[in-house]
């Protein structure tokens, strides 16, 4: 007979035991590989969502402003376009909006509003027709949310684009939105791109598809778009990347695409080239590029900064509403006609103004003007100058082209027709002012040096309103200049950004959360229990064959050969188990995915997750299961070495009760008690961190209790089991726990640890409705928060702002009385909270006003504070400056750890256009409502993101928090034009908590399953103990013990182990979470936890009764036979 035959026959003969081992391995493999499948499935589902939602789009070109629709065709016409493997291109208008269902008045905010035409579907190789006239298509999720169907009327509200910065004097701040009425013509299916989105998101896409022409008309952006979709050829021949598309863009863009206007202007005796920008401001970047171009073309240059003065005052005389231009020093000197030396800044007036004011050289002139403050207020400022010259109205002094076109001003026929976006008192306009306007229009009445003008009026949007270039030699045409300037300019630096949306989306689909990893953690106890069962069953099998091993040894089998034989059996059994486990893994994975779509949907926020079976995960899981099982088997076999052949032949595995082990356990137990108690005391007195202190203390005390229990189980017993009846039999059963103390401790430790973790983890659970209005809580003490679709620049806390925003109400009973707003600037970006499954690459950034920083609300978990002021108020860290240019930001601790996977002090690089910004985490907020975003100082924000204007996020203080519903209704009504969406802060926080709670429930549920499986392991241990003692039990039967006595004994033994494990785990967990319990006034968040613990007890009892039944069926008396 060969070794293999021996193995084969043994496998068949001991098939029952082997089947149990197979099932144990199968369970472990199912859970391990199943958890990995969950990770794969979530990643693949997210990837599928990205692919489905992008259609064929691989790249997008986006702009903060609008560019020519024609740019699309220009790009496609470039030979490199086809060479790079790109196939189609499509213009689009993409905006965020609010949609209202007209009949039901249901409102859906943060909707993707797309202006599209047939090219959108054509570029996606679809023949679907485009929406026409006022017919729109809606995505299925939007239709569902609104309850709308085909034929329903909806109102679509979007921000009206304006090239003029909202936070500048000349922007229209009250008229920032545009609402259009449309009819739902179709609920667009996902296959017809109804879920088109370039932003990776697992939640349903809520989008409305409007006719491109209609949207262009309504937004007053004829033939313009703000997004270009680029598709790659269907074959894999594409070599396109962001750089190659940027290269095409650089070749094909025009100055108009980036808002630059070049025109020729006739000065006195020369033609000059004038450069202006649609924003009416020229920033430093453009100024430098234009300057470089001028140098290349050997052109002279001058910069001008025109501004509106509310008054030019001298003494008691005043000229209303006049344009003043700041010119650079050389020009100013030429204009003044002399060198200037005065203590006050100089000013030059034209003779009309000087005459009107009755002033002469040397007189003081005061300019009064409006200045828009970043805080959202229009302030009137004054500046005093010394009149250095009065110039006739000719040459530069008569140039009406120095002033760019301002809406509501420059196009007016009469001064009295002005309709500027700031208050004017037209009563002040005199007939002579009208005459001047009729004669000279925007010709400036006064000139000051450029440096003075910049000091007074420059903003983050620029420091000049126009540039002029001229040649002292050969003239240069505007076309030549424009061409050279275009070559110099990089559109990516001017806000025209190319994004590889497909690549980024696929990268993001790797997920912020590795669900495979999480489910491995969640399933930890299941795996441990399964492996424990595997080990136990294998050990049972070995011990069943102990005489066989003895005989093998006796007849000359070497230890190596015996080990090989049994290991061979173990490996075959493990492989069989893993094959079964692979099937189980698919089932387990499917069950978990079903759980994520149903029971735990709050954790993922989508029902679009599907099971994807990956061979790699199955192989890895199976290999891990086999390895773990074989290690367990080898460990079991290793344990046989200590037994003598004689003992094995006699079928005896004598227990040892070494005294040294008992003493050692006692000493260690005492030491652990001291350390554990010390940690608890230190934590209670706040000498160390409470979480670490109490958890550490609880854990160490758990170890101490287990050590004491070990000592107790191994102790010599002085008393005896006297008497008769149920109690002595029960005591005998309890005494059986001391039969194999190590096994008993193993059972207790497994149950206690599982219970400790499951109960302790429950302390992290957030109870609904416990969010407080404490200023140091997660709500910061703000009862309400609000998101605004349209940026709000007016300060709703100021009287003027309230009046402008229709928030002013003199009725003291009004719900809006004494309501205070804390405003935040917003740079939209990826959601950095646990609500987003995709990996955030450019997180949303918000910036509070400085008063919020000073108010020192919210609690910090940790910060980089290194002085007492910062320690007292870590928000001050936002103002810190780092030598390496890193920008300080604050994030929520949960988002930092679980979504951004960063920690305090880490740098986080984000992309801003073509530029990288290094953010440094300087503070971590403790469980706050700021989990979706990073917080930055307003100063840094406006410097880094000048285009992100106004305030779009608000925290709201109420004098009477109980009136929050009335305030919500009033605000949403009065600020409906802004798409103002108010929500209780507790609700926002609860949304985050719901996700965390769901994760905890998942962990607890799977941990509970593991615990239940562990109780089966406990019963297996019990069964093994009983089988080992079958001679003793047989004798007991012989001397009169009946079935009830056996049941009582076995159940008592099991219940004691279970109860000791449960009580130990619960007691130590309660110690660990006592601070949380105290804050909850002893309440427990999760009643199901109690049910779980009862379930463990009941299943343990059931398993022990099963063990008893097995024992009673066994032919015990055979063990007594001497023959």
């Amino acid at each position, binding site marked *: 007979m060969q070794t293999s035959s021996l193995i084969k026959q043994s496998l068949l003969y001991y098939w029952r035991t082997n089947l149990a081992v197979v099932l144990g391995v199968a369970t472990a493999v199912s859970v391990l590989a199943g958890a990995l499948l969950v990770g794969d499935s979530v990643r693949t589902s997210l990837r599928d969502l990205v692919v489905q939602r992008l259609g064929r789009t691989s790249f997008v070109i986006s702009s903060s402003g609008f560019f020519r629709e024609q740019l699309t065709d220009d790009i496609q016409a470039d030979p490199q376009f086809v060479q790079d493997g790109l196939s189609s291109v499509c213009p689009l208008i993409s905006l965020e909006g609010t949609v209202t269902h007209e009949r039901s008045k249901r409102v859906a905010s943060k909707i993707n509003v797309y202006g599209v035409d047939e090219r959108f579907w054509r570029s996606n190789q679809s023949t679907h027709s485009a929406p026409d006239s006022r017919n729109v298509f809606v995505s299925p999720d939007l239709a569902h949310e609104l309850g709308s169907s085909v034929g329903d009327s909806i109102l679509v509200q979007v921000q009206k684009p304006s090239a003029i910065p909202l936070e500048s004097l000349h922007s229209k701040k009250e008229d920032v939105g545009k609402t259009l009425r449309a009819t739902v013509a179709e609920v667009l299916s996902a296959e017809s791109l109804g879920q088109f989105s370039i932003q990776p998101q697992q939640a349903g896409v809520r989008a409305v598809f409007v006719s491109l022409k209609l949207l262009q008309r309504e937004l007053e952006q004829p033939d313009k778009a703000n997004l270009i979709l680029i598709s790659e050829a269907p074959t894999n021949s594409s070599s396109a990347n962001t750089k190659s598309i940027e290269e095409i863009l650089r070749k094909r863009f025009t100055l108009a695409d980036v808002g630059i206007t070049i025109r020729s202007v006739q000065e006195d005796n020369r033609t000059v080239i004038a450069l202006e920008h649609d924003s009416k401001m020229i920033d430093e970047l453009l100024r430098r590029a234009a300057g470089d171009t001028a140098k290349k073309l050997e052109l002279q240059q001058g910069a001008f900064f025109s501004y509106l003065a509310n008054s030019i005052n001298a003494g008691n005389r005043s000229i209303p509403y006049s344009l003043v231009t700041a010119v650079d020093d050389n020009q100013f000197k030429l204009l003044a006609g002399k060198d200037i030396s005065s203590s006050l800044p100089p000013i030059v007036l034209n003779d009309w103004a000087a005459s009107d004011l009755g002033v002469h050289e040397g007189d003081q002139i005061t300019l009064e003007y409006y200045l828009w403050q970043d805080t959202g207020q229009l302030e009137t400022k004054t500046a005093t100058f010394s009149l250095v010259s009065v110039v006739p109205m000719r040459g530069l002094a008569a140039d009406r082209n120095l002033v760019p076109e301002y809406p509501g001003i420059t196009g007016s026929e009469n001064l009295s027709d002005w309709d500027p976006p700031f208050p004017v008192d037209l009563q002040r306009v005199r007939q002579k002012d009208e005459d001047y306007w009729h004669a000279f229009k925007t010709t400036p009445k006064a000139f000051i040096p450029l440096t003075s003008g910049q000091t007074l009026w420059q903003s983050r949007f620029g420091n000049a309103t126009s540039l002029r270039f001229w040649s002292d030699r050969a003239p240069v045409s505007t076309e030549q200049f424009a061409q050279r300037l275009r070559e110099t300019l990089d559109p990516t630096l001017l806000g025209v950004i190319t994004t590889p949306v497909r690549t980024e989306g696929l990268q993001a689909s790797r997920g912020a959360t590795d669900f495979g990893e999480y489910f491995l953690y969640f399933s930890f106890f299941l795996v441990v229990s399964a492996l424990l069962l595997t080990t136990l069953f294998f050990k049972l099998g070995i011990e069943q064959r102990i005489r066989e091993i003895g005989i093998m040894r006796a007849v000359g089998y070497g230890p190596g050969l015996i080990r090989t034989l049994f290991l061979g059996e173990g490996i075959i059994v493990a492989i069989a188990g893993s094959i079964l486990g692979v099937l189980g893994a698919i089932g387990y994975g499917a069950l978990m995915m079903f759980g994520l779509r149903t029971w735990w949907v709050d954790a993922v926020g989508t029902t679009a997750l599907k099971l994807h079976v990956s061979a790699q995960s199955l192989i890895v899981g199976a290999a891990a299961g086999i390895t773990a099982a074989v290690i367990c088997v080898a460990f079991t076999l290793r344990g046989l070495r200590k037994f003598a052949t004689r003992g094995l032949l006699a079928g005896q595995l*004598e*227990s040892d*009760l070494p005294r040294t082990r008992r003493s050692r356990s006692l000493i260690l137990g005492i030491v652990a008690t001291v350390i554990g108690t010390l940690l608890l005391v230190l934590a209670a007195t706040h000498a160390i961190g409470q979480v670490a202190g109490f958890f550490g203390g609880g854990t160490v005390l758990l170890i101490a209790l287990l050590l004491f229990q070990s000592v107790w189980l191994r102790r*010599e*017993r*002085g008393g*005896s*089991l*006297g*008497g*008769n*009846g149920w109690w*002595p*039999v029960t005591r*005998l059963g309890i*005494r*059986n726990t*001391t*039969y194999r103390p190590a096994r008993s401790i193993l059972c207790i430790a497994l149950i206690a640890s599982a219970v400790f973790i499951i109960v302790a983890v429950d302390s992290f659970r957030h109870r609904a409705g416990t969010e407080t209005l404490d200023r140091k809580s997660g709500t910061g003490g703000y009862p309400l928060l609000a998101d605004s679709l349209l940026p709000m620049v007016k300060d709703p806390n100021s009287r003027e702002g309230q009046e402008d925003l229709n928030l002013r109400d003199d009725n003291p009973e009004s719900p809006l009385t004494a309501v205070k707003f804390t405003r935040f600037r917003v740079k939209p970006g990826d959601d950095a909270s646990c609500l987003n499954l995709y990996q955030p690459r450019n997180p949303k950034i918000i910036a509070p006003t400085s008063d919020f920083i000073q108010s020192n609300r919210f609690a910090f978990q940790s910060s980089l504070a290194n002085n007492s002021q910062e320690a007292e108020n870590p928000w001050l860290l936002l103002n810190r400056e780092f030598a390496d240019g890193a920008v300080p930001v604050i994030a929520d601790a949960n988002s930092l750890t679980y979504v951004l996977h960063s920690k305090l002090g880490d740098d986080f690089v984000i992309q801003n256009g073509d530029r990288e910004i290094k953010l440094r985490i300087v503070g971590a907020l403790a469980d706050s409502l700021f989990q979706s975003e990073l917080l930055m100082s307003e100063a840094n924000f406006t410097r880094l993101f000048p285009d992100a204007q106004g305030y779009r996020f608000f925290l709201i203080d109420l004098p009477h928090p109980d009136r929050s519903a009335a305030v919500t209704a009033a605000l949403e009504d009065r600020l409906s034009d802004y798409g103002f969406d108010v929500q209780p802060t507790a609700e926002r926080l609860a949304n985050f908590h719901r996700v965390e709670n769901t994760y905890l429930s998942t962990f607890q549920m799977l941990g509970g399953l593991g615990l239940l499986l562990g109780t089966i392991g406990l019963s297996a241990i019990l069964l093994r103990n009983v089988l080992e*003692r079958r*001679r*003793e039990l*047989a*004798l*007991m*039967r*012989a*001397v*009169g*013990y*009946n*079935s*009830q*006595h056996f049941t009582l004994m076995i159940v008592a033994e099991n219940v004691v182990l279970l109860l000791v494990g449960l009580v130990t785990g619960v007691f130590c967990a309660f110690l660990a979470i006592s601070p949380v319990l105290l804050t909850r006034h002893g309440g427990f968040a999760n009643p199901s936890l109690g049910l779980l613990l009862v379930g463990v007890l009941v299943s343990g009892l059931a398993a022990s009764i099963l063990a008893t039944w097995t024992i009673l069926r066994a032919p015990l*008396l055979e063990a*007594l*036979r*001497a*023959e």
Partner: protein
Amino acid sequence: MVLTASKYDPVSEVIVLKIDNVSKEYPTPRGPLRVLSNVSLSLNKGDAVSIMGPSGSGKSTLLYLVGALEPPTSGTITVDGQNPFELNEKQLAAFRNRQIGFVFQDHCLLPQCSVLENVLTPTLVSTNGADATARAKTLLEQVGLKDRVDHRPAALSGGERQRVSLARALITRPQLLLCDEPTGNLDHQSAEVVASLLVDLHQQQETILIVVTHSAELAARVPIRYHLVDQQLQLIK
């Protein structure tokens, strides 16, 4: 064949154990295997018999039938006129507890219990456990283990363990003391001690002693000796 032990011992008048025409068969794949065939035996209080025979002859089977651990295929066994196999499981267990004491080749002590506790084990399920501890101590004194009452079985020698099992067998004052190779695992000296104790205690307690053994020396200590051959008991004269 009917054997009445008492006819060789005129002192005994009351028949306590009556084995009447008992046969025992075990089912096997090749048909029933008969181990005992129409065995009869009657023993009175204080009787002591030994049964010898080759391995597999059915000695232990007969002992187990007498001890009510398994039922005969045919025939009846009564103890004090009571047929234990007419009792339900619970009553049968109580019957064994009350009437029968066992000593096996393997002492079968509970390793987690002390010597005293092991002796007390049967009394835990007895309805009459009064003064059990005192009696256990007396028995342990009688078997020479007075100083070892708190020791664990692991601390005892094989002979000592068997003495504990003897004390345990007698703790409930059984009518029958059934011993299955009680000295089979012991060295000569220990076997001598156990054998002496067995006979002495049997006499003191006035039980019926049945010893199944291969040991001629042990068998010789018992006044009535049987040989089990061909499924039948044969008296050795």
